[in-house]
């Protein structure tokens, strides 16, 4: 079940916000390994543009919490170079939109150097920050880029939806020897959830069934998990039992859990931010069509952004985003209700 919707009055002592979970993961890993450092814009003195790294400068000092100029291409490349020679950088993008300025380093360097050197170099680096739309940020600040990055072999792509997943997956990401694209969400940073206080590491490539169900499988990730859980509760009142599967990592992708669910429910809807065309969701739909064709009672549906750059106006932004109503409608279509 979702930890995201736990009512505040019942929050246990281990409840953390999403941003606190990220901060704990980084801080714990920095405590145990001096090679880990955090670099990015406003991560230090400003205490983080979204306060994710609040207090970390005081705790770890300027050597390991490094404020940068506004130069994503430069500092992302710098971090990768440091990873090539043995450090374990956490490279923060204030938002993933700005990673587009560093796209060359992520794609031509991070995703390629190990392969094109014949395995001589190891690149233990995490690129992290918030992705997707928030509230009326306009076209240049609302990109959901996980599908873009998942396109490239050589990168791992992590898209957590709860504080617990965020912490456990980020710790795994920092300890992993590969370049990891770790996409958070500005909208989720304040959301609370229970987080175990032991050293929980959540492995990559293991989906989490956020809600079990029998009539339809929804595959979704990041903040769309919350939207889909809302839709699932609404559908329950109409007698439809929906299984919500959160792959948590797109690369590697836990196809088995998704396919096992579809073989049970015989129906599938894929929900994510970002555009439909050439998206990660299109690959998931294709996978389900190919691998579970005989089990499907309807073609796989997808719910994504409207095919426009993100508009500013509230009414238009709302219309452009996947929402619970749209998910409910898609589930009903595949269930022929």
């Amino acid at each position, binding site marked *: 079940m979702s930890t995201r919707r736990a009512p505040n009055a019942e929050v246990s002592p281990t409840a953390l916000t999403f941003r606190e979970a990220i901060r704990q993961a980084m801080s714990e890993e920095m405590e145990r390994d001096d090679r880990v*450092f955090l670099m990015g814009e406003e991560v230090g003195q400003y205490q983080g543009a979204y306060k994710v790294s609040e207090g970390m400068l005081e705790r770890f000092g300027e*050597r390991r919490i490094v404020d*940068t*100029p506004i*130069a994503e*291409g*430069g*500092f*992302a*490349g*710098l*971090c*990768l*170079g*440091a*990873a*090539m*020679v*043995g*450090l374990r950088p956490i490279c923060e993008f204030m938002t993933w939109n700005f990673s587009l300025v560093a796209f*060359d*380093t992520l794609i*031509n*360097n991070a995703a390629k*150097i*190990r*392969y*094109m*050197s*014949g*395995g*001589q*170099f*190891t*690149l*233990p680096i995490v690129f992290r920050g918030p992705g997707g739309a928030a509230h009326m940020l306009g076209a240049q600040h609302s990109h959901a880029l996980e599908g873009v990055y998942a396109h490239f*072999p*050589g990168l*791992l792509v992590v898209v957590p939806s709860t504080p617990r997943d965020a912490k456990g997956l980020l710790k795994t990401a920092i300890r*992993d*020897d*590969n370049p990891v694209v770790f996409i958070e969400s500005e909208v989720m940073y304040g959301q609370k959830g229970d987080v175990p206080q032991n050293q929980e590491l959540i492995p990559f490539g293991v989906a989490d069934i956020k809600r079990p169900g029998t009539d339809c499988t929804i595959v979704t990730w990041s903040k769309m998990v919350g939207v889909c859980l809302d839709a699932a509760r609404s559908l329950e009142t109409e007698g439809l039992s929906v299984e919500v599967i959160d792959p948590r990592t797109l690369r590697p992708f836990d196809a088995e859990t998704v396919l096992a669910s579809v073989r049970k429910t015989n129906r599938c809807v894929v929900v994510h931010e970002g555009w439909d065309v050439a998206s990660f969701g299109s690959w998931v739909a294709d996978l389900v069509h190919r691998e579970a064709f005989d089990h499907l009672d309807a073609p796989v549906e997808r719910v994504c952004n409207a095919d426009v750059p993100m508009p500013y106006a509230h009414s238009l932004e709302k219309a452009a985003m996947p929402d619970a109503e749209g998910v409910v409608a898609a589930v009903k279509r595949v269930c022929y209700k």
Partner: protein
Amino acid sequence: MSKNQANGARRDLLLRLYRQMYQIRRFEEASAKAYTQGKIGGFLHLGIGQEAVAVGAIAALRDDDWAIATYREHAHCIARGTPPREVMAELFGRIAGCSRGRGGSMHLFDASRNFLGGHAIVGGHIPLAVGCAFAAKYRSEDRVAMCFFGDGSASQGAFHEGLSLAALWKLPVVFICENNLYAMGTALYRSLSVEDVTAKALAYGIERDRFDGVDVLEIHDRIKVAVDRARSGGGPTLIEVRTYRFRGHSMADPAKYRTKDEVEMWKKRDALPAARRQLEEWGITDDELIALEAACETEVGESVRFADQSPEPPVEELYDHVYA
């Protein structure tokens, strides 16, 4: 022996550098031949005429320093110590290549010799060098990163961002612009508003040096100043060495955008025969030099045979090395 008899160390250094330059030139000529025979695929960017810069500069490094270069990097890789036969095998796309056949001419890597590639997006590797220097400072090591790039890179954002960060944090990196006067086929005056590349150093408040790369010892000495400065905490230096490639941008380029006179003028300034003349002046006999040259030619010939005989990477290994 002449006036320089006292300085046997200088003579020995020049002899070593001459040997490397000679070997690299013969290596590149052999690779050009192999390319025309269809044994090498893709692009092949020769640095014939530019060898002295890589050889002189890399000789100023310690083994534990790092070097990183562009797609025109056969010389740098060999100067760093990678056996020519491993480089040739890489050009041939063979398993015995220094990148196990995954890289090719543009992506030579040798982690064991701290040679970090072999990068084919112009300027894209410059921040990587700055990252090595950052790591050195982070770990309180006195290691230095040396970054080679062409004049074309000076127009790229990555060049400026790399310089900016290195300057800001006083990182131990030496930026070496191998200015061969052409960004592919575009002459310098058509691509840079200020032809003095080191003018950019003023904007970032770092040290600079600028000279013609016609004397390998001078190249070594002047770059050594920057390496020592970086090592002792003095921060980065931007160095521009004017040089010239005698061939086109790649094997596909007949270089019709240059005049014969210009090419001939630079060939007269070739650092390779100049080094030989200096060695003779310092008392190395022609016979000794011929023996040294013959040894280089033998090694280059052997590298081609080695590459020819090395198997291609097995297809079962297609997916190896994508992830750690």
